[in-house]
Structure formats: C-alpha cells, structure tokens
C-alpha cells in the first residue's frame, strides 16, 4: 500500500523502485533532527554576535548606543559604562547647570583661571583648535550673543544689544594653562558655551569606553552627533541618514544615506531651533563675528575621524557658507555635504561614490 502510494505520488519516487516507507521515515527523522539542531545552534550558540541597542536621555537629548556583542551581558556592561561616561561629561560641561565646570569658568570670567578636569581641558583645547582653523567661524565664546536669543519664546534681540555684546566674543581671550590644568576667560562678561562640540566629544569618549570593554563594533549617537566603529554583525558598515533640512512629509525625512566605518558624522541645520518673523527665518546657529544667524546654508554634515571635529566643523562650515566651507573641509581632510541657502547640494569628492540620495527628497 505504502509502496503504491510512493510510486504514484512523487516523480522522484517513480524513479526509485527502492524508495520504501522505512527510508522515508529515516529521511524524515534525519531532516527533523537537522532542523532542531540548526535551530538550537542558531539560538543558543554563545559565540553568535547580535546587535544590542539602548537609549537614554543625557546632555539634554536622546543618546542611543548600538553594539555588536556575543551576549546581552557583555553589551549591557559596555553600554552602561558608555552612558556613565556621557553622564559624567554632562555634569562637567552642561551650560545650564550652575555646578558644571563650564559654569565655574563663566562665573570667574575676567577675574581668575579655574582648575578643571582633564576632559573639560581637552574639549576646550579642541574648541580653540576648531576656532583657529576656521578663523573664528566656530567660537565657543559665542555665549554672550546666544544668551540674547530665545528660540522657544521667539525672542529676537535688539540690534544694539547684539552689537554691544560682540566685543565679548573672542576665542583668543581663552587662556589655557596645561601645567596647572586651568582655563580662564580674559574679559568679564565672556560666556563659554561648548554646545557645538560637547556632544561630538561625548560620542568619542563613549566609543573609547565601549572599546575598553572589548566591543569591536558599535555606534554612539548623541542626538545627531554620531560616531561608529567596526562593521555590523552582518559584515556591513553602519548606515547613517542625513536629515532633509526642508522636510515636507513622512516620506522625505532623509535627504541621503552614507556608510560610516571608523568615522564620525555631525550635522548643523537651520531647522533645529528657529522661528520665523515676516517670512525671515531666525535660527540658533549664530555667526560669532556678527551675532546674527548665519545665512548661507540650510544644513551641513561633516565626516571626520573623531566626533569633536565633526561636531565643531559642521558649525564652522555652516557659518562660512558653501564656498569657504568646502575649502575648509578640503584643507582639514574632512568629508562633507552642504545644502546651501537655495537648496543646492555640494559634496566633497571623497564621498561622491559612498553617498546615496533618496529620490523623494
């Protein structure tokens, strides 16, 4: 009966006169065993690497860490360490906290230097470097000007007030003493705001912690300041979307995507904090040399080896505009994408082949 069934129901079985019920059973059991074994190995193998992700609110923003690890425990330990590092930097560098070292420096402006932690000293050193290289287009002492604006209550300061504060914006008046580990602002009334470099620096430090925990691949995103290292568990590089500065709907959120491996990327845009008066857009990226919002770009994304550079130079390039900005990127050996005020896109030659533009943006 079984033999008859086998002969009439399968083309393969027709050719096999020896295809018996016993053999079918044997193959069935073998396949079932294989299926169970492969499922077991797939789910229980201790060496299998998976992607783990965790999000926290730190530095007044959303911080997301992705790691590739062989167990949840390893991933958790590394991510917890990285979040703690970012939390520590938040305490040291928070512009809005009276207890931060940055606030101490600001309170002592014009009177004395303040002894700071190695992390605060390092990030200020990097800020001064970015200011020097950009000719002041990036300036961490822009605080007296940015304090005049309020993008929540839509306060545009009087022109006179903006002019009066300009004399207090000058990175050359930051005095760094390496030996004593002190920072001093020379003029009373100067205000240091590390908001345009601290998040990129925090991503760098967090990546350092992940690596010290033995993580070979990961991505740290402190809001839009992102640093990635290694390849994902599927062997592919990390892929980052660049936000469309003039998003109209759900389909055009991303302008382009780019692969990121052992690099950092940061963006500055006029769409993050802004208000409009009589059709004129006033946004939060101020030109330190004028005190008014920089006008030449809609958004700038910069790729560099480290997050602090990507973060600070995205602001600098935004302020400089597409022509001078492109020159600065090439001079620094960075890659970047600039959307100018007309919406025209400029890309450095090094990433032309790596960037993929979305059709609906």
């Amino acid at each position, binding site marked *: 009966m079984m033999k008859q069934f086998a002969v009439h129901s*399968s*083309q*393969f*079985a027709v*050719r*096999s006169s*020896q*295809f018996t019920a*016993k*053999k079918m059973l*044997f*193959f069935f059991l*073998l*396949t079932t065993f*294989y*299926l169970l074994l*492969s*499922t077991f190995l*797939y789910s229980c193998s201790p060496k299998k690497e998976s992607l783990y992700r*965790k*999000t*926290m*609110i730190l530095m*007044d*923003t*959303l911080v*997301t860490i*992705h790691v590739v690890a062989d167990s949840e425990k390893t991933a958790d330990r590394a991510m917890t360490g990285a*979040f703690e590092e970012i939390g520590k930097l938040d305490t040291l560098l928070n512009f809005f906290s009276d207890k931060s070292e940055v606030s101490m420096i600001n309170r002592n402006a014009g009177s004395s230097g303040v002894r700071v932690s190695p992390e605060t000293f390092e990030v200020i050193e990097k800020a001064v470097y970015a200011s020097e290289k950009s000719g002041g287009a990036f300036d961490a002492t822009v605080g007296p000007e940015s304090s005049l604006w309020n993008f*929540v209550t839509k306060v545009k300061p009087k022109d006179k007030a903006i002019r009066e504060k300009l004399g207090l914006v000058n990175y050359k008046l930051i005095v760094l003493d390496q030996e004593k580990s002190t920072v001093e602002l020379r003029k009373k009334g100067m205000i240091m705001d590390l908001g345009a470099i601290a998040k990129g620096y925090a991503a760098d430090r967090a990546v350092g912690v992940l690596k010290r925990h033995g993580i070979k691949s990961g*991505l740290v*995103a402190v809001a*839009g*300041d*992102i640093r*990635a290292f290694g390849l*994902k568990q599927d062997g592919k590089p*990390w*892929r*980052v*979307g*660049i*936000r469309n*500065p003039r998003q109209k709907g*759900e389909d055009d*959120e*991303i302008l382009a*995507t780019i692969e990121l491996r052992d690099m950092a*990327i*940061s*963006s500055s*845009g006029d769409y*993050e904090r802004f208000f409009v008066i009589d059709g004129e857009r006033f946004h939060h990226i101020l030109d330190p040399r004028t005190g008014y919002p920089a006008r030449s770009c809609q*958004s700038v*994304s910069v790729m560099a080896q480290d997050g602090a550079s990507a973060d600070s130079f995205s602001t600098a390039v935004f302020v400089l505009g597409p022509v001078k900005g492109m020159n600065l990127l090439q001079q620094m050996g960075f890659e970047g994408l600039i959307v100018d005020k007309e919406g025209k896109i400029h890309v450095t030659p090094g990433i032309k082949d790596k960037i993929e533009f979305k059709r609906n943006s």
Partner: protein
Amino acid sequence: MNLKETVNGTTLGDRLLFILLLLVSFTGIIFIKDVLPQSRDVTIEAEGKLTHRYPLDTDRRVEVGSPRGRFTVEIKDRKVRVTEASCPNKLCELQGWISRGVIICLPAGITVTVGGTEEQKDRKVDAITG
C-alpha cells in the same frame, strides 16, 4: 540498515529532495527571525528602561510618570501626543501630534517613540544625523 547502505540506496531524486528540505529549514529560520514584519508601535521608556508598549492603531490615553515628572500620552488615529505635562515649559506638549519619531520629556527623563522594526528596515539606516 546502516548509513552507507542507505546513502547508496538513494537516487538523485532522493538526494535532491533532501537538499530541498535542508534549504527550506534554513529559510524558515531566517524568515522567522528577520523577515517577518512587525507592526509600528508606541514605546515609552523611562531612564532607558522600557515601561510601556502599545500598538499605534489602538486609541488610548495613558498616564506616565517617573520620580521627576508626569504626563499623559494620547494615542489617536495612528498619531501620538503628550498632554497634561507636569513640567513648567511643556516643550513636549508643544511638539503636538506625531506619527513617527520621538517626543522627549527632559525634566521627567521619559521618551515616547513611535516606530518599530518595520520602520527601521524601511529607512535602512542605523541612525540619523541632523
């Protein structure tokens, strides 16, 4: 019947059938793990820990809180908003209705995220800069 006899006794058809079954089992594993789409949902996290998860297509109001603040999350017509926030500046309320992305309440340390695995796969990105 030993293994050698069994293998020798098989035809090309038997072996092809066997390979086919192996392929089906492989595909099944990958399909279940990675391909099966998941619907878009609303996740609420406090201090990095998941506290609530709801489908976006079911209307509801949920009171959410942490030791640092409270607010209400309203899900309606596949959109989400925050209302009745206890914080002074109410920036989370100003964000209005969203159907994708995140509403962050800084004082309470709570995030409300709209999106799921399906959405991330659609966008094919691990993070967004800007």
